[in-house]
């Protein structure tokens, strides 16, 4: 690699009458050093919190805040404690709760979003524009305004007690997901109409055009939809906090992590909190990076070239 650039440099110098300009001027070198130094400092700032939480999760000393940065001893006990000490904070159950809720709401949300997006993108009907305007207006109300009312409604039909709380949470995350159709609709808009017209000539009905022509062409955006829907229950802690509250057997990971920093738990659980943050972050980060890739693929359109 270096050889190539050097030889290219030499040929270009030879071809260029005033070749002095093409060699790196001292000012330019200095500028590059400064730029790279700034980037390095920024990178440190951005990585510092992550580094710190990993370090804290490995700290052997108990207690919340310490007066020194580097731990006196390192240990994996904090991770072990998360999975073995389930008396006051039951991390495995929180994890399974979240997984169950995430899988269920992911299925419903994906179906709803894909259905609505397809209608908005491909089908033309009287209520289409009104629905799009309605979705925009609804998006402007602060989510919490309806959240309290949703809680009252769920309570009125008895969904806020016992195991039904899980159902209530699933409904909260998925039932109204139909308003979030913008990105997927934008993708469906790029699938050429000629394809669906050809499919209709070949005898497909409207539903088959959707499932057999448009959906297979939209794989990246379908994956993106599935992942965003799956991640929502892991990231939200506001709805859970209102609906579940203090019933710790139904806590999700986000709510559990938030509560670990409350006064009654923080002393015993601070380092394990850091460990839990690391454990939860790794799969979510991987999914997120995977999702970003699909998002970027999705943005470039359905049919390339």
């Amino acid at each position, binding site marked *: 690699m270096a050889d190539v650039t050097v030889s290219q440099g030499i040929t270009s110098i030879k071809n260029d009458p005033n070749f002095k300009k093409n060699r790196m001027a001292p000012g330019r070198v200095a500028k*590059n050093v400064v730029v790279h130094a700034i980037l390095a400092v920024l*990178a440190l700032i951005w990585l510092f919190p992550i580094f710190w939480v990993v370090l804290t999760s490995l700290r052997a000393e108990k207690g*919340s805040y310490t*007066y020194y940065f580097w731990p006196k001893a390192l240990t994996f006990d904090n991770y072990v404690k998360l999975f073995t000490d389930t008396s006051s904070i039951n991390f495995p159950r929180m994890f399974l709760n979240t997984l169950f809720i995430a899988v269920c709401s992911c299925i419903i949300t994906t179906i709803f979003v894909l259905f609505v997006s397809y209608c908005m993108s491909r089908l033309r*009907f009287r209520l289409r524009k009104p629905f799009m305007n309605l*979705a925009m207006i609804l998006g402007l109300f602060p989510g919490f305004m*309806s959240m309290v009312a949703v809680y009252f409604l769920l309570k009125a039909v008895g969904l806020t007690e016992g195991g039904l709380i899980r159902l209530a949470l699933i409904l909260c995350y998925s039932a109204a997901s139909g308003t979030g159709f913008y990105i997927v609709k934008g993708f469906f808009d790029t699938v050429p*109409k000629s394809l669906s017209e050809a499919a209709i000539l070949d005898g497909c009905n409207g539903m088959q055009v959707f499932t057999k022509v448009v959906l297979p062409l939209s794989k990246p955006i379908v994956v993106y939809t599935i992942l965003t829907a799956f991640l929502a229950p892991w990231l939200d802690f506001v709805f859970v906090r209102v609906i579940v509250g203090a019933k710790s057997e139904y806590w999700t990971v986000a709510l559990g992590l938030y509560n670990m920093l409350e006064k009654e738990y923080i002393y015993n659980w601070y380092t394990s909190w850091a460990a839990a943050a690391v454990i939860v972050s790794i799969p979510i980060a991987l999914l997120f990076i995977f999702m970003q890739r699909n998002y970027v693929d999705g943005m470039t359109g359905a049919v390339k070239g």
Partner: protein
Amino acid sequence: MAVSTTVADANNAAKKMKKKKMFKSEYTLFDAVTKGGWTTKLSMVVMGFGNIAHKRVIKGLIFLLIEAAFIFYMVMIGAGALAGLPSLGDQAQVEVWNEDAGVYEYQTGDNSLLYLLYGVATIVFIVIFFCFWAEAVRSAYKAECLSKRGGHLNTFREDLRSLLNENLWKFLMFFPFAGILLFTILPLVFMIPMAFTNYSTIGDHLVLFDWVGMENFKTILGLGGSLGKEFWSVLGWTLVWAFFATFLNFFFGMILAIVIQRKDTKLKAFWRTIFVISIAVPQFVSLLIMRTMLNRNGVINNLLMDWGWIQQPLPFWEDATWARVSVIVINCWIGIPYSMLQVTGILQNIPGELTEAAKIDGANSVQVFFKITLPYVLFIMGPYIITQFTGNINNFNVIYLLSGGAPVPVGATAGKTDLLVTWLYKLTIDYQYYNLGAVIGIISFIVLSIVALITYRNTAAYKDEEGFQ
């Protein structure tokens, strides 16, 4: 110029007319009511009669069943619920002396919340029923017209099949829309009336409350009381926050993207990955990390004191100005990588000839930035920035997880870093001032819709959505 615009206008108008016509049914409700024959007229009372009279028994029976269910509901629950709406109940819970048992017993009073809930739900049901009623009458009218003309009237089986073809939208939209109706629209419709009641812990109106008209709006907006003063300062800070959170993120993200994109920068992918890692960490985790790091005994204060840069811990969450700057700076930590990713994508699409031509004409890199790169990025990112701005006005997570609104002055309900949404959350969940919470929800909706309606509707994506098809 003038001619071409008028031609374009005429074209647009023609297109609009065509569109309107395309979706207009031949059999409107108005025609059905005015021109319908006796079967249609009877269908207005006995839903589905017209369909049954024209041998579409199943469809007719479904309509009839809906009507029966609705009447049953109205008689059993609905009528009482509507009647309770004006008063919201007036029987307070009372203690009654029970002679036989020798104890005081509580006699349950009226629960205004349930009155309001059932009343609002009944109104929503009535609206839904009216839609079915209109559909039944139109369908009866259609059956009547078609049988007069001798046209083909769809059988039930054909109706079902049409759900997969020309009526596919009805099938696809039904469940998502029902979800939106039950979990977004109904709660909002239920919440808005609360703004006009005295449902709150003030004056102990948690069980029994009443309509108070515009009182709550006066309390919040009026400058006299303490709540009014808090509102204006929270609103001011919300707008300041949204402005800085949006534009600092955007500009620094753009500069970072440009710096990494520079020809001379080495290891481009490496730098980008580092910044992407930080956004891949779930936001609530990174925010909680930040909160503990900036704590009075947190790692930042410790390090700075170790190095001897400061003597006292910095009051990150104790002082109003420190807290406000801290949340904005931390929001930059979270937001800059996002906008960097977005801008990087756009930068790669800037036609190379543009910048080359500018450089040949003697522009330096600063001029290229201000004359070419910035306008180009702004043009594409315009709608995104607007969404960011409205999103930041409602940015609950960052504020709640970082500062929780702190510092809170003594005796106030809102802290110095509280946004309208977090204040709304505190007022409803912590203080149980449900009525004031509803008022704030409505006000922030108004603020947002002013921002959004002006801007969204002017974006190219909204106006010309079929540009790609």
